[in-house]
């Protein structure tokens, strides 16, 4: 009998959850005070008018970092790459197993993550002519049951610094045609 009550409660919970869909708010598509700071962190300007060269060097950096190129559109200066990596954290797995044993259920823990990068180049006809590169990162973490459990934007000042250092080096190498 208790089991039946539990099943009914679960079903009711699922129905209630299905009905609870997030509503869009103006903040979803509004610029925030952090926009300017993020833009500065995510952008570097290179003193070259050769946008194609910057895109080629960027593509090489993406490949150096293990990304596969999903999308490229030279006319828009767009490169999109992704890679799948492990997201297993032994401490998390241990805790989730202990909780699962206590609750007599299956453990759910982060298993793999899809990491995505989007790079956009913009030429500027100023003096001297330049090409700016803006890069953003994102990841989706999947559980051992195949469900997407975390979806977030990644990027610390250090990550951007390292990425642009590699891109500068790659541009130099492209220039040298090595």
């Amino acid at each position: 009998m208790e089991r039946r009550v539990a099943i009914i409660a679960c079903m009711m919970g699922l129905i209630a959850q299905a009905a609870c869909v997030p509503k869009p708010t103006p903040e979803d598509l509004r610029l925030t005070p952090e926009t300017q700071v993020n833009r500065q962190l995510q952008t570097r300007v290179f003193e070259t008018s050769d946008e194609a060269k910057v895109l080629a060097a960027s593509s090489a950096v993406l490949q150096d970092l293990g990304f596969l190129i999903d999308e490229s559109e030279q006319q828009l200066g767009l490169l999109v790459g992704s890679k799948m990596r492990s997201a297993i954290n032994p401490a998390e797995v241990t805790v989730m197993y202990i909780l699962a044993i206590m609750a007599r259920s299956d453990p759910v823990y982060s298993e793999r993550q899809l990491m995505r990068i989007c790079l956009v180049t913009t030429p500027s006809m100023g003096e001297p002519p330049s090409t700016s590169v803006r890069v953003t990162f994102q990841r989706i973490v999947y559980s051992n049951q195949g469900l997407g459990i975390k979806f977030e934007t990644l990027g610390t000042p250090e990550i951007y610094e390292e990425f642009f250092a590699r891109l500068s080096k790659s541009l130099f190498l492209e220039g040298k045609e090595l």
Partner: protein
Amino acid sequence: MKKHLKRISCLFFLGTALLSSGGCATTQERLLDSETNQLQLRSIQSRAFETTDQVKTLRTVMLTLQDLGFIVTSGEAGLGSVTGSKWNRGLMIITVSVRPRGESQMLVRANCQLDKQLVNDPVPYQMFFSALSKAMFLEAHEVE
């Protein structure tokens, strides 16, 4: 206890019956989103800009999407469309198309979805076009 259980079961079956009877009609209608007013939606989602440069407009759309925290997942200059996604209380996906309108304008249309639902509230679109307008240094004109 027995009476209580009976009441819960009744409520549950009533709920499922209601959901399934309504679901048969509405879930199929969602293919063409037939319940929405197409003209009204088009007007909410579109703005015209005084420019003839389609590629530059698309490039500005991509930078605006990055400003708004989206990652651009695809873009095509030939068709004039860009798609981006971000997580904001749910998965938000936006597709923006840019095409010529008359001889001096570009029509920008944004189509946004939040967690399996079409966004048809005009305010988020107003916010998007306000951000795009700033990035383009051009006024966004409403269209009929």
